[in-house]
């Protein structure tokens, strides 16, 4: 029978690195997906996966078996992704002009000529880029992953009400960005 995550963690704590390899093989793909959705970049998502398992290895002594290993590891991954976004944001202080929807909209004479599908995706990507790390993570976890608010709050270290407010701010930014396509803006 396949060992549970908890059994593998216990084996790693006892010095069995092979058990850690099994944990990595079991969870790296799903952590990669979450990291990709937050960072929107394959190379960054790869780095997040590495950093997540490295941090997990160092902190295994603090891992509380009451939480599932998946949740715990994803929590580390989200924090790593946020760290990475923060450092990237400082470097790329401005969103690239090509991602700016207002420019796209003004260049296009008629909305009918806009190829909606591709432009929408670019607008969504630009809106996600414009969000703060917390806003983007809360939105991604709620909207794409369907994670409960309490769990998102736990990951971000904020209360449920603050989580709601963070998601609301993210949605507002998204609506503003997508307004030319939908005709509805946040009031």
């Amino acid at each position, binding site marked *: 029978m396949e060992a549970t995550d908890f059994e593998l963690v216990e084996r790693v704590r006892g010095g069995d*690195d092979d058990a*850690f*390899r099994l944990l*990595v*093989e079991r969870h*790296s*793909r799903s952590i*990669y*997906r979450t990291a*990709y*959705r937050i960072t*929107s970049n*394959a190379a960054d998502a790869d780095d997040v*996966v*590495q*950093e997540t*398992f*490295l*941090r997990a*290895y*160092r902190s295994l002594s603090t891992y509380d078996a009451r939480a599932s290993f998946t949740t715990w590891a994803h929590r580390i991954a989200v924090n790593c992704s946020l*760290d*990475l976004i*923060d*450092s990237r944001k*400082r470097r790329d202080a401005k969103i690239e002009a090509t991602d700016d929807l207002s420019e796209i909209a003004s260049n296009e004479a008629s909305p009918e000529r806009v190829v909606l599908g591709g432009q*929408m*995706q670019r607008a*969504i*990507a630009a809106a996600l880029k414009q969000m703060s790390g917390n806003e983007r993570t809360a939105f991604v976890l*709620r*909207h*794409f992953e369907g994670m409960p608010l309490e769990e998102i709050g736990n990951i971000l270290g904020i209360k449920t009400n603050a989580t*709601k*407010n963070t*998601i*609301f701010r993210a*949605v*507002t930014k*998204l*609506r503003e960005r*997508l307004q030319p*396509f*939908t005709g*509805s803006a*946040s*009031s």
Partner: protein
Amino acid sequence: MNHLTQEEIVMAYYGEPFAHLDGCEECRAELGRIAEVLDRVEAPDVPEPDAEYEARVWQRLSWRLRGEKKRARRTEWMRWGAVAAVVVIAFVAGLLWKRENRADAPQNIAHRETPSPNVPVSNTQQQRDRILLVVVNDHFDESERILVELSNLKPEEGLDIRPERDRAEALLASNRLYRRTAEGRGEESVATLLDDLEPVLLQIAHTPSQLSADELRAIQKRVEAKGLVLKLRVVRASVRAKSAVNYQQPNV
């Protein structure tokens, strides 16, 4: 009628129940407008990694874990090195103490109890003081270097301060011993500075190896608030001067 807030309508979209929506067409319309936007926001396609992905992750990771283990072993050695140094110092100090007690015959005690400013302190006393001053001076020197390095770092995410953290951890054990010794010997300024230094070394020793900008700022603020670098320089200068005086004083 109190309508739902925009935030509540967004939460309603994500499944939070609001009875108000049943009877309010206006709020339902707003929910529809929000849904019109959010329904179109689909999860971006995640490029699916190939079948070898897990193996590649492990290969890269296992290489880093080996480095991690080496570093852990080195820290362990540094810790034992610090303990060994402390034991040697304690042993030498004990020998000198014993020798001095033997030399402290009753006739000498009377002499020592009425010291004259012109009479130099005993040879063994000088030697003990010199040992303390030399090791404390080295300790301050190393601590100052760590604090200056951290104070000069630009706060940004993911700073790797493992070398400084390991050095602070090694200094922490000796810091406690020197403080107690300095207190016992009446070296008030040295003991006070060691007392100020201890929580900062403790904070550095317990930081994660990848430091966030806020964590670094907190350390820098603490060092600056206590004026630790300046204090270290001042006390080190005085310790050096004392050490030189003790060294130059003629033997009895």
